[in-house]
């Protein structure tokens, strides 16, 4: 998937096609000029650099259309985004007239497209390149600190006696499969306890989402093709995801790849679990004596509008003191762990995590609960400095349901010392918590 060498003629054409496609969308922002997106942007809040704003992301397209800038001038700007989606929600165009004119601001889509244009034009980011290359052989993301090999992708399920295949498949994200296995095990045990029949894939590969987010679309698509073929071979009609990043990939990227032929129901675990709790199919009777607040994962809250079900579940856990911060306030929060941002910009990402945890510390909680396994490693690192433990919602629910929930090995609660993302030279193995 290495990018092709620079070719001025081809790249000129690529750029022209790109600016034609994005011209109106870019101008919708350029002409608005509101810039309300800025102070909710997790990256901009740290860097204060005007190039790292959705305004710049759109203005660049206008400048490219006019022949003032090229992809080589702007590619670096688009590295500085976690694709959290806050800017789209805060945009007055989206808030008030986006639906009427079918012209909602789509900054995330633009960032992905521009990153793809960069790759197609031979402009690559070194750490993303190494990261994506590492997935060629491994078929899963290079999750740091633990061996990632295809034959171990289901080791997390050891002893749980889960079948392969079936109508419902539990897709276990790479980070949960190899690193924070307690999330995967908790989820599987909860589903079993609730009487949900489900199986695993015959051979689960990476969802491909991160590669697509970094601009490697063809590579991402090859993963998608494998996974969909595996689902079809298993006779699956429903996929349960435990990671919001997979959920986004399966509900947005895959339909774009396969069109109507892609007819599979995708369910996020918090939505399903809230239903199970509501219907009394799982009983949460073990008190969990913690003071918690909830971290709205960006891809659930900002990109998919899922913010009620996790809260519903938390309120059903006995013993818990839940200090909530509303989901709109959390538009400006982020763990920093999205869209490969932390792989290329680990210091900024760590600062984003630190600020998120500091918000939790102000509430005087002992635990920050997330529902995104990718957020949990960077938040745990920041949490260790503040004395705040970071837990996944499924880990908490498993406790409340009297289930074991522990991970395999000793990674049930990740070691605080795993400060992986800080060393940029570790290249391909530098994927920890950096999705």
């Amino acid at each position, binding site marked *: 998937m290495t990018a092709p060498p620079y070719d001025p003629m081809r790249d000129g054409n690529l750029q022209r096609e790109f600016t034609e496609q994005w011209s109106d969308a870019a101008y919708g922002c350029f*002409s608005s*000029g509101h810039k309300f997106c800025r102070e909710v942007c997790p990256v901009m809040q740290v860097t204060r650099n005007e190039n790292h704003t959705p305004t710049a992301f759109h203005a*660049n397209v206008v400048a490219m259309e006019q022949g003032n800038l090229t992809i080589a001038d702007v590619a670096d700007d688009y590295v500085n985004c976690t694709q959290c989606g806050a800017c789209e929600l805060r945009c007055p165009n989206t808030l008030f*007239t986006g*639906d009427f004119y079918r012209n909602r601001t789509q900054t995330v889509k633009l960032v992905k497209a521009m990153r793809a244009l960069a790759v197609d034009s031979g402009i690559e980011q070194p750490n993303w390149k190494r990261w994506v290359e590492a997935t060629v052989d491994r078929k899963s993301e290079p999750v740091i600190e633990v061996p990632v090999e295809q034959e171990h992708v289901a080791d997390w399920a050891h002893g749980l006696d889960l079948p392969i295949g079936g109508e419902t498949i539990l897709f276990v994200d790479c980070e949960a499969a190899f690193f924070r296995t307690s999330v995967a095990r908790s989820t599987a045990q909860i589903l079993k306890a609730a009487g949900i029949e489900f199986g695993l894939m015959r051979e689960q590969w990476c969802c491909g989402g991160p590669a697509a987010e970094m601009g490697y679309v063809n590579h991402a698509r090859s993963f998608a093709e494998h996974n969909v073929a595996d689902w079809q071979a298993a006779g699956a009609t429903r996929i349960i995801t435990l990671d919001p990043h997979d959920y986004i990939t399966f509900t947005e990227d895959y339909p774009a790849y396969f069109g109507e032929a892609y007819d599979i129901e995708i369910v996020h675990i918090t939505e399903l679990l809230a239903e199970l709790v509501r219907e009394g199919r799982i009983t949460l009777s073990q008190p969990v004596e913690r003071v918690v607040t909830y971290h709205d994962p960006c891809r659930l809250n900002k990109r998919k509008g899922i913010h009620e079900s996790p809260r519903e579940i938390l309120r059903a856990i006995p013993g818990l003191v839940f200090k909530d911060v509303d989901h709109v306030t959390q538009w400006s929060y982020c763990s920093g762990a999205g869209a490969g941002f932390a792989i290329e910009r680990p210091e900024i990402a760590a600062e984003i995590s630190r600020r998120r945890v500091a918000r939790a510390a102000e509430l005087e909680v002992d635990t920050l609960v997330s529902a995104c396994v990718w957020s949990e490693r960077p938040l745990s690192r920041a949490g260790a400095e503040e004395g705040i433990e970071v837990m996944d919602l499924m880990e908490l629910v498993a406790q409340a349901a009297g289930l074991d929930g522990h991970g395999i090995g000793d990674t049930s609660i990740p070691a605080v010392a795993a400060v992986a993302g800080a060393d940029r030279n570790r290249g391909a193995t530098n994927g920890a918590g950096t999705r």
Partner: protein
Amino acid sequence: MSTAVALSDPVLDELRAILGDDHVLTGLSARYNRTRVPSPFPVHRWKDYVPDVVVLPRTAEQVSAVVKLANRYRIPVVPRAGGTGLADGAVPLRRGIIVDVKLMNQIHEIDLVDRTVTVGPGINMLKLNEELRKHGVIYPDDPASYPCSLVGGRIGTSGWSLLGSRYGHTRDLVISMQWVLPNGEIVHIGDGGGRKIRKSSTGYQLKHLFMGAQGTLGIVTQATLELVPRPEVEFAAFFAYPDYQAAWESTGALARSGLATLAGVVLFDEWKLRYLRRDDEAYIPQPDDVQAVVATAMYGTRDEVTPAARRLMRIGHETGGRYLGDEISQGDWASRHDRYATPLHGRLRDGQVVPMSWHCEDAALNYSVLPQVREEWHAIADRFIERHGIFDDWGMFAYTNGAYKPGGDYLVEIDIGIWEQKLNDENWAAWVQCKREITEVTLKYGGSITACHGSTREGDAEYVPAEMGGGFEVMKAIKLALDPNNVMNPGKNELDRSYQPVGSGEG
């Protein structure tokens, strides 16, 4: 790709020595993205305005060193905060160095006893208030750009606040400043010498001179701001009227009410309602007999606002207003920052939807002349729309403009959409001509070109000498004395005339 800048290597080396490598940006994207602001921009000539280099200082000492360097090399310096201005203060006219202050966003001190907060110029008001509200206080500077504009730009333009009638505007809310003069010296600017003193008669009242100087007299590096108690109650009431005349009379009655908690009165005309009705989402639909709207808002303690609101409602009713209900009143007021300029509402004469940029006229005019000005402005806009096609009349607002005394003059806005994608030299010239004619009406009726954005746009700036009269000679003398090398934001407000020999063709 070219990243070459016009500045020589020694200058860049010196800048890097002052600021560190990471805080001197020479890339094309960094420079293009700090060229424009949201006001109408000749996008077809974008490259003519691109600065040579961008610097991101973190301290007053760095700003000072940059300005001293600029004097040695005679390089223009243009300060930039949020870049959200609706005039061209932050647009570099002569290239040079952009001093982008966004990294200077610290809260240096919160003083709950003497009721001040001291901040860097790069902080945003919403973010500041997120911290202040933990202490039960706020900084009540509330422009339409409240979620994104920065304190430095508010000072650079002498901004206007939607709550100004209650709490004052930026000039009333900034107590004192740390300031880098055009020669690079760091000085205290305020009313007298005390950093937290609001009213003094010592020496000249320098705060007013530097407030709104649009970067022509230096750069603010720290500001000490007013704190007020977080209001217990917000009360908003919107009234509907069958015609503009009735709404205008009611506006006057409401604004003259003498109610101290009144934060502002806003008058929407027929064109504005038509604009807001262009979709079913941006404005809750009203029956056709609603032709004008007046919005009011009050803030304060419950004990003050409750009886005052009753009085306000009575005045609204007695002057022919029909209350539009709690949902519209509270909802529209709550979304006041987001709602009223929507580029997607741009329309050509034939109804075609095109995205348009927003020109927001912001003349200051007395209450008595509002109806006449309105007619003349709309007529001008109509002529240019008919002739050039790429403009669109988005209607008018009039807002109470006086701090603590709303009865007098108004910030009067005609909003005009401009289809920038179609701009060329010819229709840009047409736009500037349209702007000039609007300005001439303002001056004819004894008004001022700008209540808050600054007189830095083409079509405004040419009229600064005419509006200021003999005062313009004072401005020139001050500019020449403080900035002998004309490094600070050159080309703005006709101040280049400060450097012309006496009698050399001044108008």
